[in-house]
């Protein structure tokens, strides 16, 4: 995705983390100019028009060319020539369809996928590092890392000892089902794996995009403030589990765990909550038990 305007560009970059190579030749070539007259050249201008002939054959008799007035915004001259088509479909229908496809793919391989979401710096990667070290005896673990840029998190996960693929979204602020499908393709997780998807650090956008996961986990840390669930309600409404991380820092910060839980449940009454420290391991067994039961 283009970093300047957020346009489609080359799309996200999926990179499998290897042991030593840092080949920087991944194709970021933004071979389009920034006049905006380029952006959608590659987008389907629908050459498969013929496939739909049947549903609009009556409109083929338009003698006048629309090119002549395609830029005039007067609305009243089009009354007779227009046709209203009812769609009534979900805006994210395509994403949801791809997500269901991912869900089927994962179920067929008995893979448990968990979508991990949080603001940047809540300790998602640290939590995953410990989880990989301590749970990998039970079943194979694989990770999809989403970040705007860099392989840094993928390298950390790789060092913890599991297969990982990095999705760099560029200007994109979330992973979507299509990126997930590409990442699954590149990662090819083993049958029966536990798959963590570390979404882009962001408490707003990822909430809307189903990836095909079994459950959604939101990680917040005690350094972020008690009222986070009220400030970012959509994320907490979408969650199945909230992990409150960094509880080893509770003596040093003004964080009210009970109140935070109450706020989170006021948004999402069915929510499960756990308190852990990914650094010291405090409370971590409850997290492992939740994952195992999931």
């Amino acid at each position: 995705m283009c970093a300047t305007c957020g346009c489609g560009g080359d799309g996200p970059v999926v990179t499998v983390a290897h042991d030593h190579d840092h080949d920087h030749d991944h194709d970021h070539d933004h071979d389009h100019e920034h006049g905006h007259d380029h952006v959608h050249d590659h987008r389907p201008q629908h050459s498969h028009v013929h496939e739909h002939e049947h549903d609009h054959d009556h409109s083929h008799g338009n003698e006048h060319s629309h090119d002549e007035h395609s830029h005039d915004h007067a609305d009243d001259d089009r009354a007779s020539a227009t046709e209203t088509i009812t769609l009534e479909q979900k805006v994210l229908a395509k994403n949801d369809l791809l997500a269901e496809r991912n869900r089927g793919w994962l179920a067929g391989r008995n893979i448990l996928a968990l979508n991990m979401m949080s603001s940047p710096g809540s300790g998602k990667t640290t939590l995953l590092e410990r989880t990989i070290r301590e749970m990998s005896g039970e079943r194979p673990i694989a990770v999809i890392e989403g970040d705007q840029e860099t392989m840094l998190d993928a390298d950390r996960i790789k060092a913890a000892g599991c297969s990982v693929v990095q999705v760099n979204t560029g200007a994109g602020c979330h992973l979507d089902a299509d990126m997930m499908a590409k990442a699954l393709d590149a990662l090819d997780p083993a049958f029966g794996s536990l798959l963590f998807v570390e979404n882009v650090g962001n408490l707003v956008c990822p909430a809307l995009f189903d990836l095909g996961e079994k459950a959604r986990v939101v990680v917040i840390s005690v350094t972020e403030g008690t009222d986070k669930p009220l400030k970012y309600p959509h994320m907490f409404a979408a969650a199945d589990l909230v992990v409150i991380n960094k509880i080893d820092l509770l003596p040093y910060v003004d964080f009210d765990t009970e109140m935070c839980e109450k706020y989170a449940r006021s948004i999402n009454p069915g929510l499960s909550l756990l308190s852990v420290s990914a650094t010291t391991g405090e409370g971590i067994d409850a997290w492992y038990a939740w994952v195992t039961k999931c």
Partner: protein
Amino acid sequence: MHEMSITQSVVDAVCEHAAGRRVREVKIQVGALCAVVPDSMQFCFELVTEGTLMEGARLDIEQPPGKASCRACGRDFTLTDLILLCPCGSADVEILSGRELRIMSMEVS
């Protein structure tokens, strides 16, 4: 800025259904409880439609308000945010509207 991706999804779906015809107007619903800002969508719409069958089209955004029904007292009430609390004090509520994110219709010529 997920409005960019969401607007892109609208434009993709509409262009597909337009099947080569020029699109004049698109009507969508963005519920008040969706995490989607209509003004941002309008802004993205202009960018995303450039060079497509939808260039110059109008985006008509209807915003269904947040409404919920209380399972405890049976009353329907307005929700202005995602805090699921009935005026009677019960948190056992069902959201009836406000989460719509739908393409309703389009006008082609």
